């Protein structure tokens, strides 16, 4: 008898490897049929709806708030203001970066879009309608908009609620040897300098942030359905902020429609919904709209960098120095390992053997939304990679050298690994020259240079035709944070756990602390277990995103799922396999030493016919078989994985663009990407991650930016103004790979989630500037920016165009 239709077995539709290899994603069946279940799909009985009143001003004192009109609305059940939260000590919440942030503004608003009041109503329309019935009297203040003016003596004070605070300075932080670097520059044959802006951009996930908060009156537990990349870390934070102990809090992240770091932080709307559920006794849903997401949630980058590169006249780099002004917005609310105020920016020597390097980062407050570490940045490695990849091109430009040649001269050699860089990172493994040569070969670099010269000559002769540009980027990433001793978030060490149980029939359940936002965990992690246990990935159910059903861990961001949780899962599976060996030995009445593992079964060495499959072993482990005294019944294993080091994926990218010099329009003609992320568990998933990141790179290089006008108005608050790239801007990606396994990861794998986002922007920018023969212009290289740069007057892209 069967209730299962064999024709609907997805494994029947396409071959599935019992382990690593390409296969369709298990989760895609529901996603492509529109059957995903996201937070906004959740509808609980008696549920109320929240809406947030936001500030129209970037900087204004709040004189008064009158909620009477909203409370008189027949469908409004509550209106919450900062004063209400203040009475419970909840008006301010501690950030992950040693600061506090307002939940609902009490004294003044510090950025446009900041939360002021939270309306709870019987339906979402009424909640929105009632926002217009709240009267707020503001006294506008001069805003701090330009980060470069934030430390001026006469700059308005963003954080005047802090007694004794006299300026907008957040922190100073440095890495590397300043004296040695100064000496390298003093002795240098050549020094190039360049000011670069990595503008403020936004992760802009397809699904915005949202929550359904409910207090279960029977169990007296707080149940939160939320768009969170880190359910367990959120549970700890909610406990700290509300005083509810952790065992009475359940966080559930259902399907998530993209995160990119946007869904790591805990936002005011979440806390308001929890508070509202407490005072109304009903479940409360809050889903932000697109403008709210773009205006108020974690942005990314906003690094104003002054780079200096020292070299010999023939292009051997002898030193790298960078001074960063980091715009952190109104509250220091970056989500990153707490001992690293500039994230991992100090990996800015990238893929090159640079003996002397030093960076100094200064964070400043401005009247903009908080955030800063998001959008697939690997904790600011995007900024670091852009800096060094641009500086290498500036150096090549100044010395009249081929940028490929300068890279060849300076790349780390394979024999230098493991390599300790000038700022202390220990790169685990790599073969950089091989990746570069493969990318140049795939791109047919020499032929491209010849075509470029010919097109340039044609343009100079006739004034017609497109210019060709070739841009390189040879980047190094550092992902899989991280060793507990050095890395924690909010005091929680960055280890992650996995629990694996094999059921009596030999199928398995894997419970993870990380949480997919589209990365394909249900497939990749099933393949890890399949690889270790020799069963089908379809025989593994992957559970994630529910703190009641999964072990503790810090979640998915910074490309850490495979490096950390993947290692935990593999280790747990190996422990299960060893347990299975002991059970098999008892079954076969043989010494475990005489058994060998072979594709899903333990068998007798020298007599392969005698053995037991995993399913037989699982049945026996749950059955009446007499087991040795020191062996528990059933078949399960777990692991809390504390990574010994990060993994260091790398790559070499070649971008080819055509620029119309008459209009400044850029067309990306080709993009060759050679990535090395060590062993690839599912090459199709890896390629999907790379495709997405390359599109991100084109987006940031050519069109994405959050700019602000002089009043602090946000100029990118809709998808009409904040442009994401479409398929029409993306060429057909040309991917290549090399495989240099990580020596310390159990599977030899490295994280791949952010490599392309880290590596691609510099390749695109380098290509465009190469086409137009301009030394530097800041992203995004819109038609207007390209045209202005060609005239020697590039725009300040973080400010309103004037």
């Amino acid at each position, binding site marked *: 008898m069967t209730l299962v239709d064999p024709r609907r077995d997805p494994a029947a539709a396409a071959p599935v490897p019992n382990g690593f290899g390409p296969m369709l994603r298990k989760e895609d069946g529901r996603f492509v049929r529109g059957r995903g279940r996201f937070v*906004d799909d959740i509808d609980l009985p008696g549920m109320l709806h929240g809406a947030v009143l936001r500030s129209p001003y970037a900087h204004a004192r709040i004189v008064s708030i009158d909620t009477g009109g909203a409370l008189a609305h027949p469908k409004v059940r509550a209106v919450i203001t900062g004063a209400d939260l203040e009475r419970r000590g909840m008006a301010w919440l501690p950030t992950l970066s040693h600061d506090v942030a307002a939940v609902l503004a009490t004294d003044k608003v510090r950025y446009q879009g900041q939360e002021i009041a939270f309306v709870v109503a019987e339906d*979402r*329309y009424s909640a*929105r*309608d009632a926002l*217009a019935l709240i009267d707020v009297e503001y006294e506008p203040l001069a805003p701090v908009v330009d980060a470069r003016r934030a430390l001026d003596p006469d700059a308005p004070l963003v954080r005047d609620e802090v007694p004794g605070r006299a300026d907008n300075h957040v922190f100073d932080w440095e890495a590397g040897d300043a004296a040695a670097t100064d000496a390298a520059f003093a002795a240098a044959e050549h020094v190039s300098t360049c000011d670069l802006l990595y503008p403020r951009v936004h992760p802009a996930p397809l699904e915005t942030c949202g929550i359904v908060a409910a207090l279960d009156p029977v169990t007296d537990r707080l149940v939160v359905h939320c768009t969170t990349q880190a359910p367990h870390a959120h549970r700890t934070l909610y406990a700290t902020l509300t005083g509810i102990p952790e065992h009475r809090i359940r966080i559930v992240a259902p399907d998530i429609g993209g995160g990119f770091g946007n869904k790591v932080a805990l936002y005011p709307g979440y806390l308001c919904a929890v508070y509202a559920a407490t005072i109304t006794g009903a479940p409360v849903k809050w*889903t932000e*709209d*697109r*403008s709210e997401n773009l205006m108020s949630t974690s942005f990314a980058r906003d690094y104003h960098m002054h780079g200096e590169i020292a070299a010999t006249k023939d292009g051997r780099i002898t030193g790298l120095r960078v001074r960063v002004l980091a715009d952190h917005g109104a509250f220091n609310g970056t989500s990153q390992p707490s001992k690293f105020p500039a994230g991992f920016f100090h990996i800015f020597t990238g893929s090159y053997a640079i003996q002397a390097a030093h960076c100094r980062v200064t964070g400043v407050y401005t009247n903009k939304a908080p955030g800063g570490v998001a959008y697939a940045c690997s904790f600011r490695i995007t900024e670091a990679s852009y800096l060094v990849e641009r500086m290498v091109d500036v150096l090549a430009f100044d010395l009249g050298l081929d940028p490929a040649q300068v890279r060849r001269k300076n790349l780390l050699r394979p024999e230098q690994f493991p390599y300790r860089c000038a700022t202390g990172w220990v790169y685990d493994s790599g073969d950089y020259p091989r990746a570069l040569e493969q990318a140049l070969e795939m791109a047919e670099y020499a032929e491209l240079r010849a075509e470029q010269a010919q097109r340039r000559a044609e343009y100079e002769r006739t004034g017609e035709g497109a210019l060709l540009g070739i841009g390189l980027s040879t980047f190094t990433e550092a992902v899989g944070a991280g060793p507990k001793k050095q890395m924690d978030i909010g005091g929680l060490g960055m280890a992650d756990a996995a629990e694996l149980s094999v059921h009596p029939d030999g199928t398995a359940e894997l419970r993870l602390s990380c949480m997919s936002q589209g990365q394909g965990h249900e497939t990749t992690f099933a393949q890890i277990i399949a690889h270790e246990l020799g069963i089908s990935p379809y025989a593994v159910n992957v559970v994630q995103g529910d703190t009641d059903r999964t072990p503790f861990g810090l979640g998915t961001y910074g490309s850490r799922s495979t490096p950390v949780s993947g290692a935990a899962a593999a280790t747990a599976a190996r422990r299960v396999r060893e347990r299975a060996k002991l059970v098999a030995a008892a079954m076969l009445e043989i010494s475990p030493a005489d058994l060998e593992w072979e594709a899903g079964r333990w068998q007798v060495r020298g007599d392969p016919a005698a053995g037991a499959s995993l399913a037989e072993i699982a049945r026996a482990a749950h059955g009446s078989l007499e087991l040795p005294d020191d062996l528990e019944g059933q078949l399960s294993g777990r692991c809390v994985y504390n990574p010994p080091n990060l993994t260091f994926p790398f790559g070499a990218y070649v971008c080819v663009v055509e620029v119309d010099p*008459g*209009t*400044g*329009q850029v067309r990306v003609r080709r993009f060759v990407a050679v990535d090395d992320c060590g062993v690839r568990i599912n090459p199709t998933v890896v390629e999907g991650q790379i495709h997405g990141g390359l599109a991100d790179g084109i987006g940031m290089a*050519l*069109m994405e930016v959050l*700019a602000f006008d002089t009043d602090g108005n946000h*100029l*990118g608050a*809709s998808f*009409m*103004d904040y*442009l994401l*790239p*479409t398929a*029409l*801007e993306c060429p057909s990606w040309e991917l290549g790979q090399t495989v240099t396994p990580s020596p310390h990861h159990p599977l030899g794998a490295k994280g791949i989630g952010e490599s392309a986002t880290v590596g691609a922007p510099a390749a695109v920018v380098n290509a465009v500037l190469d086409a137009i023969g301009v030394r530097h212009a800041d992203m995004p290289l*819109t*038609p*207007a920016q390209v*045209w*202005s740069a060609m005239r020697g007057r590039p*725009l300040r892209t973080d400010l*309103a*165009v*004037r």
Partner: protein
Amino acid sequence: MQLPAHFEYQRARSVEHALALLSRHGPEARLIAGGHSLIPMMKLRLAQPELLIDINEVPELGGIEITEDEIRIGALVRHTQLLDCAEVGRSAPMLHDAERVIADPLVRNRGTVGGSVCQADPSEDLSGAFSALRAVADIAGPAGERTVPMRGFFHGPYQTAVGPDELLLRLRVPLPAPGLRTGSAYRKVSRRAGDWAVGAAGAAVTLAPDGTVAEVGIGLTALGAREFVATEAEDLLRGQRPTPEAIDAAGRAAAQHCEPVADQRGPVEYKRHLAGELTRRVLRDALARAGGR
């Protein structure tokens, strides 16, 4: 999710019915066709009409008709229909050039020609195109029908000749007399596919038998040209031989007489440059199609 404020909804059965509803409910009523401008504005609560009068099922407003001397395009014709009409592509290729770069297929499937011009967004591609083509608009109101030339239709940003109690019936594009060589073209610079224009230009050229320019229309979108047209550039070209020098002069005139405003798409200097550059390019394209070069 962005949510509009409360509104009422009525479906109009005919032009007469729509006009009656407009008269009855006054200026707080709004016609809705494709809804691709109005609904986003309502969701952002920038527009809060009390009543939406749905004209999507008014039969008189649909259809494209081509006669000997004009193309008649019903106000309710979707962008896709215009793009799919081969006859339009032959008679007025500029309209196809423009439609190909308007928004994306989803918007083009639903958005209407009439809605586009009545919205009078300064960045509307069709406004520049129809103005270049010297189309006329037939407008129905309580007092009956009237005709307004496109050059006279746009009263300013988001303002047109169509009164609050009127509705646009159709646009009519005049066709040159048979035997005359004619061509038209449209080009747009945008930051990304689907984005509004940073700047765009369209040109329609009719050549006299002696090779001189019998008539020329030059439309500019998003570049601050009065009524979307570069009349000074047209005046320079009309009656002249379309030499490279004449085309350059027309480009310079177009750039000189427009008044673009700076925004995140670009500074004034760049947009003014685009007015000249794109005018030159579309004139060359239009002449090539007319077989004049």
